[in-house]
């Protein structure tokens, strides 16, 4: 029997982590389609979801290619169980109210943009190519959520209190994006991905400025809630995947 070629596990994990953040968040915000408070927001959220699904395809195709076991992006999306999903916990938080959805999006976008910017100069060309394309989309996503966060945070008493409640609840999940583990350290030393401490510094500096403009206060000394990037998820991800994967699980190989 031929020995299997050695898989570049760190690169594989990077592609999964990037792709899984995108697909889980896209699935979450897709649920607003037809339900957002106004038509303009409805379309905008659906646009963001579609951008993220497009990015998912690129990342998971890359993951499948690195793994070399013949799994496509669809196989990885629809036939993996929760423990094999490597998204950060933030993106699997339920939609809550519109403030909660927007705050979750903002905390994601604010990390996503500097991360993709840094990945554009990855030593791995396939990663740099995906980042090049995705960064333009992420730039718009952040511009948009930043505008909304500031307007709603510094808006009416009602909008302010809802945004603040969402921030209190979600802020502890922000740190996971920039908390490095051994995989991140290896990726950084091989110049495939940036050192997460650098992204973390940019991320939290930016959050501080934007949140101050929105008159919102990040909780002090919030514990960092993490585990998703290692496959340890909250209960909510199971329900999300059950719905998202239903068709392929019930009718394996179904196409239309």
């Amino acid at each position: 029997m031929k020995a299997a070629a050695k898989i570049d596990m760190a690169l594989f994990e990077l592609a999964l982590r990037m792709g899984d953040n995108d697909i889980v968040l896209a699935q979450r915000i897709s649920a607003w389609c037809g339900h957002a408070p106004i038509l303009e927001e409805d379309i905008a959220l659906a646009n963001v979801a579609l951008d993220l699904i497009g990015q998912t395809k690129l990342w998971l195709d890359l993951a499948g290619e690195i793994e070399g076991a013949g799994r496509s992006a669809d196989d990885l999306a629809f036939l993996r169980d929760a423990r094999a999903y490597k998204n950060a916990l933030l993106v699997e938080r339920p939609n809550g109210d519109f403030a909660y959805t927007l705050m979750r999006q903002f905390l994601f976008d604010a990390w996503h943009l500097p991360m993709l910017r840094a990945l554009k100069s990855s030593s791995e060309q396939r990663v740099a190519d995906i980042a090049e394309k995705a960064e333009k989309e992420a730039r718009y996503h952040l511009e948009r959520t930043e505008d909304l966060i500031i307007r709603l945070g510094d808006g009416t008493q009602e909008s302010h209190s809802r945004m603040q409640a969402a921030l209190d609840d979600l802020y502890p999940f922000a740190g996971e994006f920039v908390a490095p583990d051994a995989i991140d350290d290896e990726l950084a030393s091989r110049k495939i991905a940036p050192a997460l401490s650098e992204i973390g510094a940019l991320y939290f500096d930016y959050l501080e400025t934007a949140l101050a403009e929105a008159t919102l206060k990040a909780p002090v000394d919030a514990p960092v809630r993490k585990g998703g990037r290692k496959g340890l998820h909250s209960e909510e991800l199971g329900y999300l995947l059950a719905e998202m994967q239903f068709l392929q699980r019930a009718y394996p190989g179904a196409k239309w």
Partner: protein
Amino acid sequence: MKNEWPLWEVFIRGQHGLAHRHVGSLHAPDAEMAVKNARDVYTRRNEGVSIWVVRAGDITASSPGEKEPLFEPSNSKIYRHPTFYDIPDDVGRM
């Protein structure tokens, strides 16, 4: 209805060299968000290179009742149409 966001009229330039064209309207809390909403509502299929928005209330429109004095006098003045000239091909789009 009092709490509804103001209405904005949206104008999009489809290509460089063309004029902005009215494409529709939308609601937004302010001008900046109106441009972003216009991007999301009206340029999803690569329709534009530039967006203008203007508050619907800031547009002063002619009144349909004024149609006769405003427009009819020009009906009989065909010499104002530039149809008596041949436009050279090199002039391009006018």
